[in-house]
Every structure is written in C-alpha cells, then in structure tokens.
C-alpha cells in the first residue's frame, strides 16, 4: 500500500505570504555562508542535507485529501478537501496511461474543508468516470449538491458527467472497496465524523481525522485503540496542543499530538502521521509541534517498541 497526502491542513486552505518565503530564502542563504554551487541540483542537495524541512520545504495548505493506493483496480481517496484538485489532475494523467477510471471516496464528514475540492475534481466532469462515495452520513449527497447550487458555484451538480453513486454505511458493518476491507467507526465531532480502517492481507491503514478525545470520555478509548490495533499507519487529527484541546478549543471536535501518540502506543500501531494542521500555524510552528511529538513519544514509550512519527505534508508519500 502507498499513502499519498494531497491535502493536510485543517479547516481552511492557506498559503504562505511573501514575507514567509523571503524568511526561508534568507535562512538558506545564511546557512550557505558564501558557498558556490555549480547548478540548482547541487544547491538542492545542500539544502536537503543542511536545512530543516520548515526552511527548505513547506507543509502545504490544502485541506484534507489522502489517497491510498492498494491495487490497480480503482482509486481510493479519503475526503474531498482542496487537495482533491491536484489529485484529480494526477489521476487524469494516470488514467491516460491505462488506470481504470473508478474512484472510491471515503468521507469522514461533510464539513466544508472536507468536501470543498469536489467541484474542482476534473474526473467528475468526464463521462467515463465512475465515482462511488462511501459515507456514514445519510445527507452526504445533499451536502455535495448544496455546495454546487447557483449561489455558491457556477456549475450545478447535475451537470457533472461522471456516474456518481452514494453508499451510506453503518459503523458495525465492514465492506469491500478498491481491493481493501473497509471498516468505519463513529467519532466525536460536531454532527459526528467517521474514521476508516483499510485492511489488506498483512497491512492496515487508519484514517482518523476530526475526532475529539475528551477527558470525560476516556473510558471509551479502548474502542478507539481496538480500531487502531496493530495498524501499520494511523493518520490522526493533531490540530491542537492537549492544553488547547481541553480549554479554549474544547468541543471544537479536534485532538492533539500527545493523545494521538498514546492511542497509537496502546494500540500497538507502528507509525503515526500527524495530520489536519491548524491553519494559523506557520511551517516553523508545525515543525516545532513535530519535534515536540517526537520528544513526547520517547518520554512515555516505556518498554514498548518505538512508534515512528511522521508529520504529514502536501505531497508526502508513505509506503506501507
């Protein structure tokens, strides 16, 4: 399995302002300290070896969209955030090379940041595309139709040429899709959200975003740990610090990096991807949160195997 992150930011698409890019260039030039490079490739090699990710790269600003490549028969995509536009362009290129035009979507919920990319999803405008939208919400179709009403968007939903079907699932029933066994679980979020687990023989990926793990509900977390059990990769909502999540951001439906680490430790998961980054965070803020998560994991690891932690960014690929 291969997991591609097309959008990793929460709530709102963002892009760095000019002064943020200038600060990165200035830090890079200072680190170069007068060196001369024969070409851009040599300069890039220096940057990779000597600069932190927040300086030489960017975590990106597209809202949630994650592709899980599990076989040749169909695409599998979690959520339709603004990252979906880039996925659609990539999928169009791959279909031109022979990939079937079948798209299985798995919706965590229907908030705007998780569906806003669909009107810009190029394959939806192509008559040869088959789109199957898996959801736990019975009103998913209404949500997608509403955002393409004339007051919000110039192209109505009914003008889309793809064959589009909605399949509403119940949490207690797993199903087969895109070459994987898929199960879902209800999560704490405004109007509810759903986490998904994707299993293939010997491999498992969990997508769990927009999920709040409240202090008063800690008794129920054994169910979450069972859902994450022995997963090779858990993609987790880590939008806030725990201190924020239990105070100023209480009841907004999001989790923290330290709770994500603890759930993965208890579940025996092998790798955690920090996801749904706070839109006001700069790249340096996200890098700091990532570094702190690594230190926390080490501090509370006890006798367990090390949990590998990665910080998702737009464009990241993780082989499972």
């Amino acid at each position: 399995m291969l997991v591609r992150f097309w959008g990793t930011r929460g709530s709102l698409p963002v892009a760095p302002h000019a002064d943020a890019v200038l600060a990165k260039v200035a830090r890079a030039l200072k680190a170069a300290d007068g060196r001369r490079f024969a070409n851009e490739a040599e300069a890039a090699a220096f940057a990779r070896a000597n600069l932190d990710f927040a300086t030489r790269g960017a975590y990106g600003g597209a809202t949630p969209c994650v592709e899980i490549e599990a076989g040749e028969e169909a695409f599998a995509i979690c959520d339709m955030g603004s990252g979906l536009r880039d996925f659609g362009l990539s999928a169009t290129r791959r279909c031109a090379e022979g990939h079937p035009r079948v798209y299985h979507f798995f919706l965590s919920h229907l908030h705007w940041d998780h569906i806003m990319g669909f009107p810009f999803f190029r394959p939806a405008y192509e008559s040869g595309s088959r789109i199957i939208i898996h959801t736990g919400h019975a009103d998913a179709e209404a949500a997608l139709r509403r955002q393409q009403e004339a007051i919000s968007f110039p192209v109505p939903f009914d003008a889309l040429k793809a064959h589009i079907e909605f399949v509403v699932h119940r949490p207690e029933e797993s199903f087969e899709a895109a070459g994987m066994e898929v199960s879902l679980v209800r999560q704490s979020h405004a109007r509810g959200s759903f986490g998904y687990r994707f299993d293939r023989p010997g491999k498992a990926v969990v997508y769990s975003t927009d999920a709040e793990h409240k202090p008063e509900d800690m008794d129920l977390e054994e169910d979450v740990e069972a859902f994450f059990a022995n997963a090779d990769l858990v993609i987790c909502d880590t939008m806030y610090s725990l201190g924020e999540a239990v105070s100023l951001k209480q009841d907004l439906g999001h989790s923290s990096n330290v709770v994500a680490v603890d759930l993965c430790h208890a579940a025996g998961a092998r790798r955690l991807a920090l996801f749904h980054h706070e839109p006001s965070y700069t790249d340096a803020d996200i890098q700091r949160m990532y570094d702190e998560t690594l230190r926390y994991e080490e501090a509370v690891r006890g006798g367990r195997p090390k949990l590998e932690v990665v910080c998702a960014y737009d464009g990241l690929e993780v082989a499972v």
Partner: protein
Amino acid sequence: MDWRVRNDGGRLVASPTGRVDEESWKAFSTQLTAAVRDAVAAQVPLVLDLSGLEYMTSKGLRALTMAKNEAGGKVVIRLAAPNETMRRILSISRYDMLFPVVDDVDQAG
C-alpha cells in the same frame, strides 16, 4: 502507581509515585478527585507533589483537567517538583499554561 495524601499546614499535599499511564490513570483520577473534594471541603489549596512521578501520559493530564473541573475554581491545584521528563511533558502539552507549576513543594503555598 502509589498515592499518599497529607494535611500540611493549611494545605493538602498529594503525592503520586510511579507512572500515570493507560494502566493506572483510573486509580490516579479517582484518588485525585477525592483529594479535590477534601480540599474543597476544608477550603485549602491542593498541592500535587510530582517528585515521585516518573511520567504521566495524556490520560493523567486529562485526569488533571477533570480534577480542575471538579474543583470549579473553589480551590487552586498546584503542580510541584516535576522531574525533567514531567516538566517536558507539561511544556509539550501546554499544561504548564493551565496549572501553576513550581520547583519545590515548599514553594507551592
């Protein structure tokens, strides 16, 4: 995790030892809530002496939040004498912005 609590000159000092993790958080939370109720009844501050604690996971931290909610502003809960690991955890979680943290139990007032 072990737990001791003592009255100490106009304050209640609770001293957990060991680790607070997924195995022990319920016992920690139960003891802590009882100590908060005792402190509220006696109208004295509660000092949590962390010097014997190896570390605390998010389960323990969230138990602190529940204890603070239980106190309802009637008593102050102070965290005292965290080791280096606990100080790091309090900083990473930003719990050092939710609770007063002091270096020494005697400073905790």
